[in-house]
């Protein structure tokens, strides 16, 4: 009895120690840094500081990994690591815990966080447009009116897609009960449409292009046709980072602006660059970026009061937001560079 008990305890401790060592790698300088965080190790030794920025694998957040790549292959003072998340609640939790201090996020959610007292500010946008309302290819719908009584999927109640579609319903004189809305995770939307579980969906790319490429969906509306200069996501920064390291925020905003300017004119290269970050098929991303310029754009990224006021008003009207937050509390435009030159990314270096 004694021997086997001792053996048992020793074995258990051994397993825990070995697993702990393998998990936290005390011998490596990066420690427990996730291998997923570093897609490209860059040769840029000049950068003395680094920052992890959160994003989701949607093309609205494309400038985030591009900035990551640019910071490591060109001369910048800060190295940016883009950390991929799979859903916004996790992003919020990470931001609240300050595990990340800057992230891309849907705008109404950032407003909600601000409303709840989380000290975050919107410092820049990540894109314009980038979403579509998709219906089944064989559907006879020609406008939103034809979708009366149908089921439409949206990614979150706090998504701008939800706000915008309600605005459009108002324009067509539809009541909010005329369309049946369901909240679905974006990756499930194309397959739900294919199986007939929903009649359409409104979400960011590449989940719209997927349905088109697989041959069962078509675009009913481009976001810009409903809401000019549509925004779904913006760069959200924790106020502590703004106070403690304004120079990092400056680098980040400049990096995103330059990455946007580069991506706007190097679309196929951008698709190739971000595919390993997104872990998505380059073909789908390439289709989103190159097939139709109306789909998404990465210039004009300075947030205006008017952009955000419209979103806030709609949120309050729908009862999802509670109070008007002054725009200067919500937006910080101090870091936006006056001149924006495309990031000097060498396309030949893209692996």
């Amino acid at each position, binding site marked *: *009895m004694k021997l*086997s008990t001792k053996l*048992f305890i020793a074995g*258990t401790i051994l*397993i*825990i120690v070995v*697993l*702990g060592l*393998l*998990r936290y790698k005390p011998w490596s300088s990066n420690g427990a840094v*996730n*291998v*997923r965080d570093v897609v490209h190790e860059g040769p840029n030794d000049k950068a003395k500081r680094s920052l992890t920025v959160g994003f*989701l*694998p949607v093309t609205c957040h494309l400038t985030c990994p591009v900035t990551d790549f640019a910071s490591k292959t060109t001369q910048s003072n800060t190295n940016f690591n883009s*950390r*991929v*998340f*799979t*859903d916004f*609640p*996790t992003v919020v*939790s*990470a931001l*609240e*815990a300050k*595990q990340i201090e800057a992230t891309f996020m849907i705008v109404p959610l950032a407003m909600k966080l601000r409303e709840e007292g989380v000290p975050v500010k919107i410092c820049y946008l990540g894109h314009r447009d980038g979403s579509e309302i998709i219906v089944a290819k064989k559907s006879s719908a020609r406008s939103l009116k034809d979708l009366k009584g149908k089921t439409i999927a949206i990614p979150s109640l706090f998504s701008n897609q939800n706000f915008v579609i309600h605005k459009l319903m108002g324009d067509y004189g539809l009541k909010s009960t005329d369309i049946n809305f369901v909240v679905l*995770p*974006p*990756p499930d939307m*194309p*397959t739900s449409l*294919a199986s007939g579980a929903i009649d359409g969906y409104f979400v960011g790319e*590449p*989940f719209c292009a*997927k349905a088109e490429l*697989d041959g069962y969906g078509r675009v009913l509306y481009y976001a810009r046709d409903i809401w000019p200069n549509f925004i779904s996501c913006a760069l959200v920064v924790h106020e502590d980072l703004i106070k403690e390291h304004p120079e990092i925020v400056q680098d980040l905003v400049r990096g995103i602006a330059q990455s946007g300017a580069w991506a706007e004119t190097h679309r196929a290269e951008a698709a190739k660059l971000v595919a390993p970050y*997104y*872990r*998505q*098929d380059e073909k*789908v991303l390439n289709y989103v970026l190159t097939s139709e310029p109306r789909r998404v754009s990465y210039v004009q990224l300075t947030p205006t009061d008017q952009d955000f006021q419209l979103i806030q008003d709609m949120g309050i009207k729908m009862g999802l937001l509670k109070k008007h937050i002054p725009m200067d509390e919500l937006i910080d435009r101090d870091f936006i560079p006056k001149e924006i030159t495309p990031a000097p990314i060498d396309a030949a270096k893209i692996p």
Partner: protein
Amino acid sequence: MAGTMSSATLPKKTTVQSATAKKSNRALSYVLPVAVLLFFVLGWWLISHFNLFPAYALPTPADVVKSFGEEITSGRLYNDVIASLWRVAVGFILSAGLGIPLGLWLGQHLHARQAFLPMLNFFRFLSPLAWIPFAILWFHIGDKPAIFLIFMATFFPLVIATMSAVSTIPAIYFRVAHDYKYKGAELLTKVTFPAVLPQIITSLRVSYGISWVVIVAAEMVGCQDGLGYGIWEARNGLRLDSAVCYMVVIGVLGMLIDRLLIQFTKLPNVRWGYER
């Protein structure tokens, strides 16, 4: 056991025959599962080859093999396996370390048992996944929320299983213990614990199964790596082939670890519990 004992007393010829029978039995025990597996893969291949399901709904075996290669060469799979194993090990050892002693104590104290049983049952029936929002609020993201969920999933079943095992120990054991004047800690280590050990090992195996199922679900939220996260990420990337590759790893690892736990039932101190 029985086989070897009887063969020793039987004539030589029969021994040889039973040895060959045993050998072919042993061979069959490998051949049959492999045949079923091959049959399964063949069926899968046929379904995807003849496009019975559209490609976006069922990845082909070749795609899965390819994504296996990608996951292994990028180091992601290794990292995720370690992350999941670490979380399960810590969560599981914490809950066994606290749950088994508590179960032993409750099993010996009737009033305590009466007092705590309803509450233990209440928590046992709460799906650990219901704790996800709190796990994230309290422990944010990383290893801690997953470990917490594993703990919540396994602690209560372990306490209850240990407790009921103790309360079914034949009274005669305690009468004998009384004659030997065993009391307190001695009674626990010399009589109670050995008597319930086989049942504890069985319930450890069962709750390990629960924790392996829970870890995958737990890692889908609030984590940045791990096998469950791998599936979630593959789904976000519209890469079902990679999701299947993770599913295969989860299944195989689960089986291997269970084989390991079965070894405990062969320890000399508990074997009696399985050979009745």
